[in-house]
């Protein structure tokens, strides 16, 4: 049974708290934890607990997009999340200490296959309409490439937007491209390649430097082949 652990923030002397992402990065993260020598059997068998005590670490599980929030506040000393999340939450102050190389995805601009709507809207309407779950990444991409766009934030299946005419295109994270193809969409531009990253709280990175560096090194050895 999971124990309720102390809620205090950065406890010097206690075990390091590592926030790990549920969802797409979950199984690769557990594999990586296995390779750094952490027993993940309990995590694999118990899908409902949020907090796990394993040898030397307290593991807390959450949505990938919450991880920068917890780590910035020091509620977790370290965390694993996607580069897409870090790019979208650029203002969060966390140390990005290691590229874990797994969970590679591309952040892309996509439009309907053979559909000229993107370019046409830009020429005739002054800007394209883009639906996305990543409004900040999208806005920054268009700013940096000197173009205007109306960025529409949606929460659910973003592929729907160009099909029914909410938007001319989408900015989204693509792993295999299958979902895009299934919905008659194609990649037009690649914005960034996103892999899983290990991040650290600013204060933990300083005050628990030795333990943090030790864990970073173990992850480096386990993921850099």
């Amino acid at each position, binding site marked *: 049974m999971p124990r309720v652990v102390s809620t205090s923030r950065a406890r010097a002397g206690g075990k390091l708290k590592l926030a790990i992402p549920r969802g797409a990065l979950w199984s690769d993260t557990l594999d990586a934890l296995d390779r750094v020598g952490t027993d993940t059997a309990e995590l694999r068998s118990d899908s409902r607990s949020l907090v796990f005590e394993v040898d030397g670490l307290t593991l807390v599980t959450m949505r990938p997009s919450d991880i920068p929030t917890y780590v910035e506040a020091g*509620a977790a000393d370290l965390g694993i999340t996607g580069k897409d999340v870090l790019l979208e939450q650029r203002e969060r102050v966390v140390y990005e200490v290691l590229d874990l190389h797994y969970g590679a995805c591309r952040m892309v601009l996509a439009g309907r296959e053979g559909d000229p709507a993107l370019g046409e809207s830009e020429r005739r309407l002054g800007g394209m309409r883009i639906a996305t779950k990543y409004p900040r990444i999208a806005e920054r991409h268009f700013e940096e490439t000197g173009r205007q766009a109306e960025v529409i934030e949606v929460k659910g299946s973003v592929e729907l937007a160009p099909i029914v005419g909410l938007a001319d295109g989408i900015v989204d994270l693509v792993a295999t491209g299958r979902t895009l193809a299934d919905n008659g969409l194609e990649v037009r531009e690649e914005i960034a390649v996103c892999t899983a990253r290990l991040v650290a709280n600013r*204060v933990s990175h*300083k005050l628990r430097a030795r333990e943090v560096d030790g864990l970073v090194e173990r992850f480096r050895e386990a993921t850099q082949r």
Partner: protein
Amino acid sequence: MMQRMIHPTPPGTRDVLPEEMRELRALETALHAAFDEHGYGEVATPTIEYAETLQRGDERYANAAYRFFDERGDLLAMRSDMTIPIARLVATRFQDQEPPIRVSYVARAYRAVNPQQGQMREFTQAGVELIGAPAPDGTAEVITVLSAALDAVGLTRAVVGLGDADLYRQLLGELGVEEEARDRILDRLAAHDLVGLDAEVEAVDGLSAEGRATLLALPAMRGGKEILERARELGGEVVERATARLQATYDALAERGVADRVLLDLGLLRDLGYYTGAILEVYDPALGHILGGGGRYDTLLDRFGRDLPAAGFALYLEPLHVAQAEEERQEERG
């Protein structure tokens, strides 16, 4: 039922009620006492300054968050810290006073922030400025006062991070990394993005293997005085000079008995433009945020017409209060 009327305050601002106010007042009183004891007299300056004055201290004030025109059409700005107003004050009001000049303050300042992250756009800073005392002794005195202030508010576990603002920039210069490549690398370091830093350093053409290794190793070097030895092994004149500066400060701190409060950190970089040499950050194990910062700004006073070396720190009162409460809570729990 009658609709209750709600009158919110702007995001990033808040009211303080008596119970909290009493505690904040006690905190301020303790800090004042510590500052006084070390000979730092309190000063106050206007909340608003001419935008030009603030910009003279730091060009980036061109983007100060809150600027407005007064009835004469002059551009005014809300101060975002006390260091520049005090540089102005010292240069104009203490023209004939023999340095060193020691002043302290507890004052509100204003910054554009993201209130969602719990940051405040109006906040209180408590700190000191020591004008006319060069490194390393001036720096050591400021850290001594900082240490006493932390003890005075019960944060005996708090730690002062000590780095060097010039180290990384000058190292890039020494290695011939200039302009855009240099700015991109500094930008990644300032963003705490060590993965991006790695990629930017890899992307620079013509770097020696040793140069590359030094650029990648320094940001991870933090700890006791042993890291100075490790840094020296990396070689190079810039690293040699910076470690010598840090060593001198460290030795001066050891003489004053506060060296064990300091965490040397060669990756430290603060985002204010006026720092030269030593830079400081304050951490407490009970809180995930920094509690304050500071450092040397030996060229700032000159911009106001009095060429004097200077150093100081500012503690952020509200996070300090949170850390105090958190420490008390942890103590009660055992």
